[in-house]
Every structure is written in structure tokens, then in C-alpha cells.
């Protein structure tokens, strides 16, 4: 059965893991050609449902099993009375195994098969059956030109298994990729469909397990989990006789001159996400504004680290970095935090100072870099981070023994033990200032309420992305503070205060 987005399974696989799954299905008795037929039927159902009146299909077929799927979809579409043309990129005689059988089926059904050239016009719905999950290096000619031809056609495009040119492991575009309106993927979800540049090219994603036996799927190795409302970690419900001391005391440190708003956003977010008590250590100039905006918080005007020492004895969680700056003031406060044996969230300038190796991160903290900060921490370029986000996040977790939230489209959460969670929700309207400050405060509040760092990071990222999705519907001009009441509401929906 086709799945809508909410019905996608949780497990995400590498291309190699999906190949292993495929092999295990075949070993368990389902011939590869039968799987190919099922894939074709699933794709055809999706096409016919999405574009019921199109009546015309152009299939671009490559050389691999992806092409085999394409030839069989062509057969089904022609049987249903659509006008069908397969444009073969390269020589169909080079097809092997099941793909060759599929080609033979299309030939025996008298499907029109022509070699693709730059002059081939595309018509109707375009089915991308060019390149599958085996692609690793950059897309070569003539595939690159065929992909470009699809993209400039302006026609509706569906991709078989993965848009051609998208890396199944990393979500990187390998030079050029098909921009699909719909992708029908099989057997196991590929990690690369959910992070990096995937959101720009995948379109609507449908999944079909090709009737794989659940026991085969359950036993298979996977790379990551998708964060969904169904599998979120949650803080415990609150006992009726709870008091504020049970839900932690978050101290937020930051807000150098000119950056006071950042730490206030974090503090407000922490307060509104259920922290028992909230303290803010910021520049004295910001105290009045902070108290006016958040009278619930205790606000300490701080000119040096010494003034923090007493407070560090009393609090349970630190959030350090929003608006911290990289000058002496920020460095001094950060070094005080770095020597406190408390669960901590490091964000923004705390990470820039960490990259300069001016301080070291205590163990078991959560860091929340965006790709640029991650690049500085790893001593590489932002492009290198984005080229393999999962690897970058794992490397950071290992380097700092920390839970890492790698922000950006398809946010990743990694743990030093190797776990990886992916949040593929969000909204382009979230590309605005202050969003990270809200996330840091939220994370601090969840840690203060007793969640484990990895769990807290997963829940925080999901809440933040879903709040952003809700507010993003109102379009550009999203303000970071708009998220805070929505996060509160979503947190209550997912983890009610009282059971």
C-alpha cells in the first residue's frame, strides 16, 4: 500500500543497507524480477493517482535496475491507454539481469523505445528512471544533460526510488539532480532522502515496502531514525503535588553588548518549555529590559566570571552562547561554565570559542551548531560539512563526546554511542534570526526536567521544527518569539503535564 508522508517507517538506511535488504528479500524467496514488478506497480499507482488525467508519459531510462522499474511502468501506463515513450539514455542492449527482462517485456508490449538525445522533446508526465541509489561520484554525461533536460521541461516529474543525482547516503546533489514533484521509494527509506539538499528535489515522498516480510525488515541494520510524533522521547508527566524545585533551574549565559535579545529569547523559551526556574546572566545594561520582558526570571547583571560562581552552585543546567560574543566578557563567562560539572547546552558563540580551542567542552553536553559552526569545529569548509552531514555530525559527537544537533534543513541529532536521528520537518520561513536561541533555551528546559541529553535533543528539534512548520504557514516574517507559544502547546500535546 502506498504511504502518505505520515505513514513512512521510522528507520532510515544507507544505500548499502537497502541493497542488503533487497538481497535478503530475494534470498527469502521473492525473485528480483518480482520485486521489480511490484516496484513498477507501486510507481504506476502513484502516477495514476497523482495525475489521473495526464494520459501521456515520457520515461527516461538509464542502465540499472532503476531503468528496469521504468520500462515496467511504461508497460503498465501503455496498458492503461496512456501514450508512452521510453527515452533510453545509453544503449538498452547494455541492460543486465532483471532490467534486461523488463526491457524485453516493454519490447514485447510494443512500447515505443527511442534513444535519448538533446533534441528529444519531453511530453506529459516525466518518469525519472535514470540513476538509482548506487551513484557515488558526480553525475556524468549524458546523464547530466538528460537531468537538466528534465528540469527545464517544466513538466510534472516523478522519480523512481530516488531523484537521479541525489546521494542516497548524504542527501547531497552530485553535480545535478532531478527536481521531482513525487518520489516513490522502495523497501527501505534512504537517509539521503531526508537531509542535506533532499528537500529541494524529492517532492512528495511515497514509500512502498514491496511486501517485504516484517521479520526481514525488523532484523535489518539501519543508519538513523526519523523523528516522528509516534516515536518521540518524552519527559515524564508531573505528579499532582509537584513543586518548582523538581523541574530544574536553568541558567542562561550570554547577551554581550549589542546582542542582548538572543539570551532573552533563550530564557523565554526555557521558561515557556517547563523549566522550574530560570536565571539569566547577562550584561548589566540588559537587566532592566530582561526584567520587563520576563519578570519570572532571575536576572543577574554580570561583568565577570567571578560573579557567576555562587549561582553555578545553585542551578542544574546551563545554556551558554546566545549573544555571548567572542570578546573577553564572553570568553570569561564561558570558561566559568566550562569548569562547572553541570549538564550544558552550548550554542552560537560558545561554539566559535570552542573552535578556537580557548576552552574545552565538559563531557555529556549538547552542542547545537549550524553548518558554519560545525565546519569551524571540524576545521573544514561549510561545503564539506553539507556534503556529508551525517558524517560531520558523527565526527563532532566523537570529537567532543557530546550530543550534537546539526541544524539546517534535515536537522540531525547524534550521540557518541552512534545513534542518529533525523528531523526532516521545518519550513523555509524558519531561515531567520533568533531561531537557534529559542532551540537552545528549549533544550535547556528539557534537560532541566530530567531528560537524557540525546532524548532532550530529539524532542527539542522535533518541537522546534513542527512549531516552525505551523508558524511558517503564515509566510515570511516569522519572528523567533512566535515559536515559543506554539512549542508550549506542542509539548503539552505530546507530553501532557498531567497524565
Amino acid at each position, binding site marked *: 500500500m502506498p504511504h502518505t508522508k505520515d505513514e513512512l517507517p521510522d528507520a532510515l538506511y544507507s544505500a548499502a543497507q537497502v541493497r542488503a535488504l533487497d538481497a535478503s528479500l530475494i534470498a527469502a524467496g521473492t525473485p528480483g524480477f518480482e520485486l521489480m514488478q511490484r516496484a513498477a*506497480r507501486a510507481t504506476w499507482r502513484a502516477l*495514476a*493517482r497523482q495525475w489521473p488525467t495526464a494520459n501521456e508519459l515520457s520515461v527516461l531510462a538509464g542502465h540499472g535496475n532503476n531503468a528496469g522499474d521504468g520500462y515496467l511502468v511504461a508497460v503498465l501506463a501503455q496498458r492503461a491507454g496512456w501514450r508512452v515513450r521510453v527515452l533510453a539514455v545509453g544503449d538498452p542492449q547494455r541492460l543486465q539481469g532483471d532490467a534486461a527482462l523488463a526491457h524485453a517485456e516493454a519490447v514485447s508490449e510494443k512500447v515505443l523505445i527511442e534513444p535519448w538525445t538533446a533534441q528529444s522533446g519531453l511530453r506529459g508526465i516525466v518518469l525519472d528512471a535514470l540513476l538509482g541509489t548506487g551513484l557515488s561520484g558526480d553525475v556524468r554525461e549524458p546523464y547530466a544533460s538528460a537531468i537538466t533536460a528534465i528540469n527545464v521541461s517544466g513538466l510534472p516529474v516523478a522519480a523512481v526510488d530516488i531523484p537521479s543525482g541525489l546521494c542516497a547516503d548524504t542527501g547531497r546533489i552530485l553535480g545535478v539532480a532531478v527536481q521531482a514533484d513525487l518520489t516513490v521509494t522502495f523497501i527501505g527509506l534512504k537517509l539521503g532522502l531526508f537531509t542535506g539538499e533532499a528537500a529541494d528535489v524529492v517532492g512528495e515522498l511515497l514509500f512502498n515496502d514491496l511486501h517485504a516480510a516484517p521479520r526481514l525488515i525488523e532484523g535489518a541494520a539501519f543508519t538513523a531514525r526519523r523523528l516522528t510524533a509516534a516515536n518521540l522521547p518524552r519527559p515524564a508527566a508531573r505528579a499532582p503535588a509537584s513543586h518548582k524545585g523538581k523541574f530544574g533551574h536553568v541558567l542562561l549565559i550570554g547577551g554581550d553588548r549589542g546582542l542582548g535579545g538572543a539570551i532573552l529569547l533563550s530564557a523565554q523559551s526555557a521558561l515557556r518549555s517547563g523549566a522550574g526556574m530560570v536565571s539569566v546572566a547577562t550584561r548589566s545594561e540588559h537587566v532592566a529590559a530582561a526584567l520587563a520582558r520576563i519578570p519570572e526570571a532571575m536576572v543577574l547583571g554580570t561583568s565577570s566570571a567571578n560573579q557567576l560562581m555562587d549561582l553555578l552552585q545553585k542551578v542544574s543546567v546551563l545554556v551558554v552562547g546566545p549573544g555571548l560574543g567572542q570578546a573577553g566578557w564572553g570568553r570569561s563567562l564561558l570558561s566559568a561554565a566550562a569548569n562547572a560539572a553541570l549538564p550544558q547546552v552550548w550554542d552560537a558563540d560558545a561554539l566559535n570559542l570552542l573552535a578556537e580551542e580557548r576552552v574545552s567542552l565538559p563531557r555529556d553536553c549538547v552542542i547545537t551548531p549550524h553548518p558554519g559552526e560545525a565546519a569551524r569545529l571540524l576545521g573544514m569548509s561549510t561545503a564539506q560539512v553539507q556534503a556529508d552531514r551525517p558524517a560531520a555530525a558523527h565526527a563532532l559527537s566523537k570529537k567532543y563526546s557530546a550530543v550534537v544537533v546539526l541544524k539546517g534543513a534535515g536537522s540531525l541529532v547524534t550521540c557518541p554511542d552512534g545513534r542518529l536521528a533525523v528531523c526532516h520537518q521545518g519550513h523555509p520561513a524558519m531561515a531567520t534570526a533568533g531561531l537557534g536561541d529559542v532551540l537552545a533555551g528549549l533544550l535547556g528546559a528539557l534537560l532541566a526536567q530530567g531528560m537524557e541529553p540525546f532524548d532532550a535533543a530529539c524532542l527539542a528539534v522535533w518541537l522546534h521544527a513542527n512549531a516552525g512548520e505551523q508558524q511558517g504557514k503564515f509566510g515570511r516574517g516569522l519572528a523567533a518569539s512566535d515559536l515559543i507559544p506554539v512549542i508550549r502547546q506542542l509539548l503539552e500535546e505530546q507530553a501532557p503535564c498531567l497524565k
Partner: protein
Amino acid sequence: MSEVTLYLADEQAMSDFGARIARITQGHGLIFLEGNLGMGKTTLSRGIIRGLGHVGAVKSPTFTLVEPYEIGDIRAFHFDLYRLVDPEELEFLGIRDYFEDDALCLIEWPDKGAGFLPKPDLTITISPQDSGRSLKILSQGSRGEAWCAALALESK
């Protein structure tokens, strides 16, 4: 609605019976073929299609779900819905077109397409009996009744 039950001893008898259905229906109507895997639904279908005059292979339409035949003026469609995942898929086959013009439509596993198929003229249910097969033929509508009666008469 009427019902006839008959006994067919072997595969040859099944094929011959198919040829009689071909003769009686003259290549029109909607026939459901029910019975478990291996009961001979495809053998019966082959008998019917060959009985209409088709020479050459009658292959099981497992992937495409439907195999069309054009035999002179006669149009016949052989469906095998065993692998239908969702009855909605029949819509994507353009199934309505098949039932126009009163072509002969043979449908194996019709229950998989429940809700998307019209009422049949005949429903033939095949089950094991001794070393052969028992066929229960159920008719709906006047044409089906007439065919059923003719089949019963010939079987006496």
C-alpha cells in the same frame, strides 16, 4: 438467480468445458472465476479463449493484471487480480473501458476487486472433488440464466 453444479474429471475436461462456454457466450459477458490457487481457473480461461478461436499462447496476466485478446471481431480480456494490492488500482487500469462494448471479460480472483467490478453474468466456483473438480455455476440476470440453462442442458 440459478445454480448448476457439475463434475469435471481432468484438465482436458476443464478445457473442453471452456470451449462450451466460448460457444454459448459468443465472446460476450462478464464471468467471475473463483477457487483457490491450483484449482484450474487459468486452465478454464485458456479453454474459453482458445474456444473463441485464439491460436497461440494464453499467458497468465500476473504482472499487468489483464491480458487482451482480439480474435476476429471478438474482444476478450483475461484478468488475474490475485496481486491487486488495492481495488483502486483497477481504476488506473482503465477498467471501465474494458466493460464497454460487452467484450468477454474473464476475471480470476474477483473478490480482490470488490466494489470496482460490475455484477457478473456468471460466477464459476471451482473446488476439488475426488480426483477432479466440482464447478458451481451461479447466474445473475436473464442472459446469465439462459447461459446457465444451456450449460446445464449440455451437461446432462
